[in-house]
């Protein structure tokens, strides 16, 4: 017997209107109870059967855009032994799937770390250097307005995150809007993902309105895929799947 609450969640799943919390609740229920999983699968299949009748070919140019886009998008890897999750989704492993290549990260970031150490010499009187630039300007605006600023919009399970990088500023800014507000036990974490692993840029949390605007130094995203994960408060040393958004 399925509870009214689970029935409601199944309806919302078919409508594509589950919140993140609702999705977790339904996933947990489907894992625990095969009847829930079967009812969910059947409802989604029925909804899909109706929606398949609304097929409409997109413009031909979209095909080229999609096929070009995936060339720079890494695929997730599911570890062996993953159980079945809801909605035909294999369970996301809690552990890292992108290995942390510390040696490479050290080599890559060594010049930046040296620069940071040099800057630390000017750290006097407990005043954070990132609060304002030397000329008193906004350090976030300095990156966004820099002549060499480049913008990447991250896409995935969550949208609304943009990363602006300026080599001349030696920093990047994470701008986000409409993000799920996290409780105190969790944080978002930004990663640079390369062929050999992932390196943390830092953590960020949206405000009560779901917006964030945060500057990170010591990170050069050129040549890396940017990825965002949800991590325990304080962040993690390696990313925890799923990657919520990437570019």
């Amino acid at each position, binding site marked *: 017997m399925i509870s009214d609450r689970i029935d*409601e969640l199944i309806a919302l799943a078919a409508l*594509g209107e589950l919140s993140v919390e609702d999705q977790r609740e339904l996933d947990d229920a489907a894992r625990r109870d095969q009847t829930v999983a079967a009812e969910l699968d059947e409802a989604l299949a029925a909804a899909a059967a109706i929606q398949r009748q609304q097929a409409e070919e997109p413009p031909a140019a979209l095909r080229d855009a999609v096929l070009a886009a995936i060339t720079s998008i890494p695929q997730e890897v599911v570890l062996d032994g993953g159980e079945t999750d809801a909605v*035909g989704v294999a369970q996301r492993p809690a552990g890292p799937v992108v290995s942390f290549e510390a040696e490479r990260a050290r080599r890559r970031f060594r010049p930046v770390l040296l620069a940071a150490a040099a800057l630390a010499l000017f750290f006097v009187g407990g005043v954070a250097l990132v609060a304002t630039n030397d000329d008193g300007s906004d350090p976030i605006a300095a990156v966004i307005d820099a002549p060499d600023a480049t913008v990447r919009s991250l896409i995935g399970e969550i949208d609304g995150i943009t990363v602006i990088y300026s080599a001349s500023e030696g920093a990047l800014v994470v701008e986000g809007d409409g993000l799920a507000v996290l409780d105190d036990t969790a944080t978002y974490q930004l990663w640079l993902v390369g062929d050999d692993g992932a390196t943390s840029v830092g953590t960020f949390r949206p405000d009560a309105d779901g917006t964030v605007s945060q500057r990170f130094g010591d990170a050069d995203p050129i040549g890396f895929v940017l990825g965002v994960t949800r991590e325990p408060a304080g962040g993690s040393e390696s990313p925890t799947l799923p990657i919520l958004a990437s570019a």
Partner: protein
Amino acid sequence: MQRVQAGDDAAFALLYDELAGVVFGTVKRVLRDPAMSEEVTQEVFVELWRTAARFDPARASVSTWVVTMARRRAVDRVRREQSQRDRIERSATQHPREADSTVDTVVASIEAERVARAMAELPEEQRVVIEMAFIDGDSHGDIATRLDLPLGTVKGRVRLGLKKLGGKLGASQ
């Protein structure tokens, strides 16, 4: 799909050719706006590529998995847009029912006939809600407003309607 999961971009191109119309159609029903629908369609296929390893054929067909993904992403986009625009006004000006084209499409395949037959057998109150949700692309909030029903009633009718449809479609396969 196994080849896509293994990173085969040629197989992905074939999958795109097979599913692009369904994804674009699903997204456009929700968003109405063609340009925005193209953007979201691209996002869906990028997500499909990125998360292909999560697909479990024991739980769903590829098209069901992708259509579910498309619907969710379209709804997410609407939610974001709602903070910037007055969607009701946009819906009123850009939301033709396109009933004729729907009918044309429905009779175009065996599945379409099965779906149409199963839909016709639904109680009126459930059929209307199912059509508004999955043919018109309305959210359950929009449906509740248009029909002046409590949200819970709309969700209940969607659930009951899908349950009956699932039984009818499953039984006829």
